[in-house]
């Protein structure tokens, strides 16, 4: 009986490790093969090289001269720059908007609360493509030129919801009596907000901001529809590259992106664990 039990629990552990192998093997594969020098078949290991990294940083070398794979490093840099500008701006706006609505819904009495809750819930139940086409139709009908501004607006529409949800969860955990105490002690609304409410919701605000930064950097579907020719973001650029054919440089770009997102995610989760 005991042997059976041990067997059963070790079967579960073995399954668990398989599960993580399934989740991480594809990612590790990209990292490993980004150092593979074989330009013809990326999946047959030839020898270690940093050539693909050199290519994306604009350095020429033997393999890149024999076959110039990357269309243009300038385009890549422009895409990275666009992505960063969009993600930073969007994060700023969406964080302010999302936090404002979350505070209003949680701390004030007014009639339209149900409407705001439903509004914030809508992007969650809508497939990205629906919002993407709606925004495309809208921008074209009002005659707006598709650019990084349309992308920023588009990202803000749904990222406000993400911030709202994260901040609302934080407010729900908060002790409301502290704000009352502050008011009882004679602080006015603004002082209470600045000295009591804001510091307490700050972890939620930062969490929401990090989340919206990551999602904005990564968004492909909505951006794909509302990006102009000169305003490609990094995911849209890579998507275009992939559709034209698989090239070894993509491994290197992907590895760098991987590193970047793991760093940001780790910062976020580290901050959360320190709070607890």
């Amino acid at each position, binding site marked *: 009986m005991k042997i059976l039990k041990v067997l059963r629990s070790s079967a579960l552990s073995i399954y668990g490790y398989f599960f993580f192998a399934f989740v991480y093997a594809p990612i590790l594969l990209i990292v490993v093969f980004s150092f593979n020098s074989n330009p013809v078949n990326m999946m047959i290991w030839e020898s270690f090289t940093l050539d693909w990294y050199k290519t994306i940083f604009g350095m020429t070398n033997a393999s890149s001269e024999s076959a110039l794979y990357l269309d243009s490093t300038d385009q890549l840099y422009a895409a990275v720059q666009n992505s960063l500008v969009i993600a930073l701006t969007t994060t700023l706006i969406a964080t302010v908007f999302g936090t404002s609505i979350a505070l209003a819904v949680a701390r004030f009495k007014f009639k339209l609360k149900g409407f705001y809750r439903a509004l914030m819930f809508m992007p969650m139940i809508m497939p990205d*493509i629906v919002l993407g086409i709606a925004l495309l139709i809208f921008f074209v009908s009002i005659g707006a030129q598709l650019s990084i501004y349309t992308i920023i607006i588009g990202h803000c*529409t749904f990222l406000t919801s993400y911030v709202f949800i994260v901040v609302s969860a934080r407010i729900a955990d908060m002790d409301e009596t502290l704000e009352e105490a502050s008011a009882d002690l004679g602080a006015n*609304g603004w002082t209470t*907000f600045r000295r009591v409410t804001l510091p307490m919701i700050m972890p939620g605000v930062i969490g929401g901001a990090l989340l919206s930064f990551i999602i904005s950097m*990564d968004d492909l579907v909505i951006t794909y529809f509302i990006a102009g020719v000169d305003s490609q973001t990094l995911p849209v650029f890579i998507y275009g590259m992939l559709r034209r054919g698989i090239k070894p440089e993509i491994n290197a770009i*992907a590895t760098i992106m991987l590193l970047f997102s793991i760093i940001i*995610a780790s910062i976020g989760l580290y901050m959360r664990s320190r709070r607890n």
Partner: protein
Amino acid sequence: MISSKTNVDRRRIMLLGLLVPPTLFLLVFFIVPLTIMVIYSWLEPGLYGGVVWNFYDLNYGRILGWADSRYEKFDPVYLAIFFKSVRLALTTVLICLFVCYPAAFWISKMSDTKKNLFLFLVTLPFFVSLIVRLFAWVLILRPTGFLNQALMGTGLISEPLQIIFTDTAVIIGMTYVFIPFMFLPLYASIEKLDMSLLESSSDLGATRLQTFRRVILPLTLPGIIGGSIIVFIPALGNFIVPSLLGGAKVLMIGNLIEQQFLSARNWPFGSALGMIVMAAILVLLVYYVKMMTREDRLARTPSIKEVQ
């Protein structure tokens, strides 16, 4: 009296300050665009892209089965693609469920430090760029990809398997991408499981299967349903996964919509297709809410509680 009145005024001004800017923004850039899309789906497509402002129900007719042969043909292929998308999305949901359930159970039994580490490891891929994760599967599943190289290297097969550009590839890709979506809600309800209930169930003579079916499954049902919905919605409207892993051979409704907007330039028809996807999701959500409120009522009935 006066001071409390100014206080009320002040709070009203604060409330307006908080609400007006985001409300205006979302009204103009979220509600108006969605409304325009709904209107577009009932307008006549122009000859060279664009629309003619006439009421026109044949965008839906082309999809659902009525059509005036002078203008538009009903083509069952659209419904077929829709149902195929539903099938692929449902398969993805089921596989995600089967893959995540045991893993969530495994992690829920760990010590706290280990638990946090493994939860971090499960959530991490969510932060890794979607396109990077899908690219990995392109590399794995291609005819000259990792899987075929490995299988041929070990002599299991002599010719490369054609996996990419099939339904299987699309399902694998979507499962991989949506695993974190399924895992977290499942884990939340599995973690809340009261282990003493399982013990008492077996003490009372239930077999393991009975305990699972009568105790574990009903108690984790909210997580199962929640996770399934969170996976189903983005899977149904997906077009990135089928376009990278399904190629031209596996068309989902998302690809059809993309084509209407970016190559066929029939925006009203594309909007109608988008509305069909939304309608399917709304039906599902209404059903879900109804079921949840019924569960709630049942849980509150005293007779059930006594039995428990």
